[in-house]
């Protein structure tokens, strides 16, 4: 039962990440702020990661690799924040 609930929630989360990513891309198109582009891609990665993690149904060996895309997404967010703070003000 728990597996079914987790899978259901995971599917909802994957779709939610994807929709959030689309919103970020819309904000990027409006403002041309690279931060939103990075967030859009990052949330896309979170979505793909969520789907892969469920598809792999990872055991102990692979569970960490299943989440590397997620880590990549957050690293991208970190890079975007650093870029925001280092870029020259208009």
């Amino acid at each position, binding site marked *: 039962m*728990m597996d079914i*609930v*987790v899978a259901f*929630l*995971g599917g*909802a*989360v994957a779709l*939610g*990440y994807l*929709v*959030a990513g689309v*919103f970020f891309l819309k*904000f990027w198109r409006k403002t041309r702020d690279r931060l939103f582009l990075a967030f859009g891609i990052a949330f896309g990665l979170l979505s793909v990661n*969520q789907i892969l993690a469920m598809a792999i149904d990872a055991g*102990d060996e692979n*569970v*960490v690799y299943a*989440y*590397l895309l*997620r*880590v990549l*997404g*957050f*690293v991208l*967010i*970190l890079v975007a*924040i650093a870029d925001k703070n280092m870029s020259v003000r208009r």
Partner: protein
Amino acid sequence: MDAFRFFLFGLAALTSIGCMWLLFRGYFRSGVRLLFWTALCFVFLSVNNVALFIDTIMLPTQVDLRLLRSAAALAGIACLLYAFIWESE
């Protein structure tokens, strides 16, 4: 490799906590509700990341936090989508 994974997953958790802090700070300065709900999203994503860190790195066989992680992520995304739909314009 374990240290590398520890670092990466810890970095993800710290990033989401950092985003949460910046957004709450921005909300208290500007009063823009979009920032509040986005910050709340990162509260839940931080819970999700910390739980993932515990679940996969610290206590991989002792605990199963999948339900907590999924619920936290879903709550976070719900806050974010509410913010983008109702508070962004």
